[in-house]
């Protein structure tokens, strides 16, 4: 069913779609984020849900406090080493399909507090991240752009075949090991299956 035939039909009020499109359309327009404010980015996240920037236009203004009912985790703020086990445990306790937006420079790579002894240098060391938003804090428009990027990602997912998303593959884990508190830092310092170290990728 090629695209221009569909647009032609839809001009006459006939909507042709596939089951996959319908499934993805339903899921991408009701992404429920987890109430999970860490630091300054959380205030910008709250400002995005308020009247002026209105995250409700993207179906995401329902912020669920419990991970059981949330399907998106916005890591908004600095993830410290003391907070990292909790972040990973919350991610594990979210039902599939789940997504992660790393909001702000701190969640992506430690940001301005990168060389702090208690700061984890980016949450993608322990959990897979779907959308990264640079900024410190990113403006509300940037967070809305992240939601649009996530929605495009969801609508591009196939339900069958090899490139199915993670939650449709039995063998891919939906849980990641929770780091422990060690004597001098977190043990392990990062999770090597998840963390694709850019430098290693360049060298390797």
């Amino acid at each position: 069913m090629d695209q221009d035939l569909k647009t032609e039909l839809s001009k006459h009020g006939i909507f042709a779609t596939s089951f996959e499109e319908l499934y993805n359309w339903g899921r991408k327009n009701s992404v429920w984020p987890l109430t999970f404010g860490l630091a300054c980015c959380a205030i910008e996240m709250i400002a995005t849900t308020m009247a002026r920037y209105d995250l409700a236009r993207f179906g995401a203004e329902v912020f669920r406090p419990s991970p059981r009912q949330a399907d998106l985790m916005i890591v908004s703020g600095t993830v410290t080493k003391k907070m990292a086990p909790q972040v990973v445990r919350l991610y594990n306790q979210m039902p599939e399909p789940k997504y992660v937006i790393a909001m702000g420079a701190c969640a992506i790579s430690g940001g301005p507090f990168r060389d702090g002894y208690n700061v984890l240098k980016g949450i993608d060391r322990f959990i897979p991240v779907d959308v990264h938003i640079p900024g410190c804090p990113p403006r509300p428009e940037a967070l809305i752009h992240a939601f649009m990027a996530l929605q495009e990602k969801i609508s591009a997912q196939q339900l069958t075949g090899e490139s199915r998303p993670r939650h449709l593959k039995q063998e891919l884990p939906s849980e990641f090991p929770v780091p422990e508190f060690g004597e001098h830092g977190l043990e392990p310092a990062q999770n090597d299956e998840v963390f694709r170290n850019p430098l290693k990728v360049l060298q390797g």
Partner: protein
Amino acid sequence: MTQVAPPEAEQNNLMELSMGPQHPSTHGVFRMDVRLDGERVMRLKPVFGYLHRNHEKIAETASYLAAIPYTDRLDYLCSMTNNWGYALAVEKLAGLSVPERAEYIRVIVAELTRLQNHAGMVGFLLQDMGASGTPLMYAFRERERVLDLFESLSGARMMCNYMRFGGVRVDCSAEWLGQAAQLVAGFGGFLDEFEQLLTGNEILMARTQRVGVLSSELAINAGVTGPGLRASGVNYDVRKVDQYGIYDRFPFRVPLGEHGDVFDRYMMRVLEMRETLKILEEALRDIPSGPIMDPKARLRGLRPKVGEAYGRIESPKGELGFYLISDGTPNPYRYRVRPPSLINLTVLEDMCLGHNIADVVVILGSIDIVMGEVDR
């Protein structure tokens, strides 16, 4: 099989619960280990450190100028007052003076920060009380107006990085001052609307009066500062005590409470907003023109003489102090922040004992903590 005695909590039927780092009521990653008898709180131990980002360690390896953007991220709702606290401490350390116009701009932006912080605090307090959304929408509508002013002045909404020791970074245009005057003129109407909706509301009064009472002796001894202290009837406002900057030119009154409960702390914020409007009107009216930077202040390579200085201001949360020890090198030997939010939490347990767990949420909201400042 030896009978192991159950932990002390189970012995007298108390439920051990932690309102942990991820909790809608804790204004960030703050954790309270609570022991409950049914719904009543028998013991409450706060746990900090989940947002300890090593602000002081990083500032000690950075130069005096480079520490200013970090002060924005201390109390990330009031970046201008953090800058001013730090700038005041460095000016005391290095003996710099601030030109007249810069002093006026500092008062204007600091009081605008106080407006948006107190409005946000009242919105969040009502959100903690269960009125989820509506009061916060009104409060953030006003806050967005103030953030627009900050953005047009300093370039950023929340992280303004605007003040320097010896003055301010950018001069504000007459058009900006006009917009600020317009905002101040309209803010009174918002406050009347807010008070009409909230102050007389029986649910608010029932949920906040005689809840979380803090006596004035305990408040002084535990170092509580800011609106929380004045709600207990102690007349101590660093703007009046130290009269830093040019606060002695503005005749504003300091509201005081009698009972020191959550309702008084809420009223402190509302009344302080009204006093702030008076200060802003006067400051915007008679701001002089002139330089905005002390000419002899060296920003890049500031090397203050060996010595120390403790500068403090009245931030919307309380007394925010910066203690700097210089050893003549470009970076401070010791850089210490006196966090009002952390010290105001000393008495959290004393206020919450005997109350229900729903009141703990309201009491914590009335203290108005920001985790960036608590954990630094």
